[in-house]
């Protein structure tokens, strides 16, 4: 019961607010998950294992998690750059660009999927120049990565932005006085401060991408073992009224996501401890 081992805070009302928080989290987050898990108990263990180890399911899980990881990594780099530019440089149209970053949040994902397919299809604006080079984006796994990058970009930008804004100029000035060049300042001062936020943003982008359906389905091509994502497997099982099979795949996706996110959180905790950042 070290949960209730509270430090004596000046602020009263911890017990009540903590209770409300826990209740709310249970109602909104834990109950649906519990129901999902409970549903899978209707099928025997062997049936469960058989369902989730089927070749198509395994291939789709690999694709979903692999493509999401690639998209998250690319977003960590490009999102950081974007946040950096938005924070550090005044330029005309800055407000507009800042607002544009949120668009993937607001846009229905199906619209995003159709728009991206229009761009990258073999007869599309970009696709027509890529096709002769033998680069296939739409209707190939590459298209899935492109769609996932699009929908998860805001997560990284929006988590890193405030951190960069809060960085004190004095730190950099002090570093300069001590003879550091620009690259050293970035590597030793700015980057370590941004790491926890980058990891958080990357993790959120990754988590969002694994469950994405709407935008991917139009650009993927959906060929079994090649470009079928895990959410599509779930949908196609539902289309055959195979609730249990669909639930089984969903539970595996949840489990994998949870393990990965937990690991990322642990890394982050460790990183922030190491860099002595305030928690």
């Amino acid at each position, binding site marked *: 019961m070290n949960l209730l081992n509270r430090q004596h805070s000046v602020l009263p009302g911890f017990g009540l607010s903590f209770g409300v928080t826990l209740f709310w989290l249970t109602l909104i987050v834990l109950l649906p998950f519990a129901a999902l898990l409970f549903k899978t108990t209707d099928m025997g263990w062997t049936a469960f294992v058989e369902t989730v180890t089927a070749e198509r399911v395994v291939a789709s899980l690999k694709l979903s998690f692999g493509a999401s990881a690639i998209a998250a990594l690319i977003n960590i780099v490009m999102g950081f750059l974007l946040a950096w530019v938005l924070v550090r440089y005044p330029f005309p149209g800055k407000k507009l660009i800042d607002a544009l970053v949120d668009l993937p949040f607001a846009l229905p994902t199906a619209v995003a999927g159709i728009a991206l397919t229009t761009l990258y299809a073999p007869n599309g604006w970009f696709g027509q120049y890529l096709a002769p080079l033998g680069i296939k984006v739409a209707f190939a796994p590459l298209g899935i990565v492109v769609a996932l990058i699009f929908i998860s970009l805001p997560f990284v930008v929006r988590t890193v932005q405030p951190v960069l804004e809060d960085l004190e100029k004095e730190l950099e000035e002090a570093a300069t006085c001590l003879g550091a060049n620009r690259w050293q300042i970035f590597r030793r001062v700015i980057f370590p401060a941004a790491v926890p936020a980058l990891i958080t943003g990357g993790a959120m982008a990754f988590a969002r991408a694994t469950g994405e359906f709407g935008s991917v389905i139009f650009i993927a091509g959906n060929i079994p073992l090649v470009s079928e994502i895990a959410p599509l497997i779930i949908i196609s099982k539902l289309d*055959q009224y195979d609730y249990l099979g669909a639930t089984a795949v969903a539970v595996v996706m949840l489990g994998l996501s949870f393990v990965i996110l937990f690991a990322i959180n642990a890394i982050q905790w460790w990183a922030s401890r190491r860099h002595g950042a305030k928690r």
Partner: protein
Amino acid sequence: MKPRLTLTALLLSLASTSVFADTQLLNVSYDVMRDFYKDYNPVFQKAYKAKTGETVTLQQSHGGSSKQALSVVNGLPADVITMNQATDIDLLADKGLIPAAWAKRLPNDSVPFNSITVFLVRKGNPKAVRDWNDLAKPGVQVIVPNPKTSGNGRYTYLAAWGQALKQPGGSEAKARDFVNRLFKNVPVLDTGGRAATTTFIQRQTGDVLVTFENEAEMIAREFGRGGFDIVYPKVSVLAENPVAVVDKVVDKKGTRKEADAYLNYLWSVEGQTVAAQNYLRPQNAQVAAKYAAQFPPVKTFRVTQVFGSWRAAMKTHFADGGVFDQIYTKK
């Protein structure tokens, strides 16, 4: 999303039925029947009012067919359900919403009109596609929606299989081999018929789109006839659109009389004419004769004739690990 809206609208309208004494019917249907029922509903309303003096208002809910059937099972109060595959209505029978022998209640196994599977090719037919065998040739790209998620795709698959069986010297092994080769030529498996149309017409992907005849005519209306030709294969499958009154709902709402009338009227000359105008092949001989010019004669078979029953076909071919899955998993 949509069913929720319909539900809200329905609840609101139920609250107001005491004020306006007209009956509300909810028709839960699949995606591409939007256009047909948009034309049919006013025709029925007028006829029903003339006959009984009663006003019936109609609400439509459209979506992927199996999703729609699931919604009804989960409580979407549909008075009638209109689908493109008997299995989607069988689901309601399995769950006790309608009797198991629902299909016997209306003529022709409760199928008021049907369509057939045809080929759309690029203008001038550059790949010289004449019949099924040409679809399996190397270098021909075929666009078919995914049979796992789309009734349209299932009909195409079953048509390909059935016609191979009907060839001289046809056998299960030959049918399997043909369908295998055909799907090796499919570069994209869209989740539904409309998505496949988009891939073929707007993305200019593939040489042949296999879809329903009425869908082909919809494309012609929408995009003009300049971009493609329609090729009629020698043998095709009959895509049947069964309909049923949902007993559990109409008994609760007291709308059985109106729901029965709504479905029965589909077989009337007026109802059949609306179907023909929407390029659905009418059952009524008189209407069929009048519109004969737009429906070239094609030898057809029913799914039940070749595969025994829809249930059997689903189990053998489209269930997980079934014959369709093996096309991709057998190297």
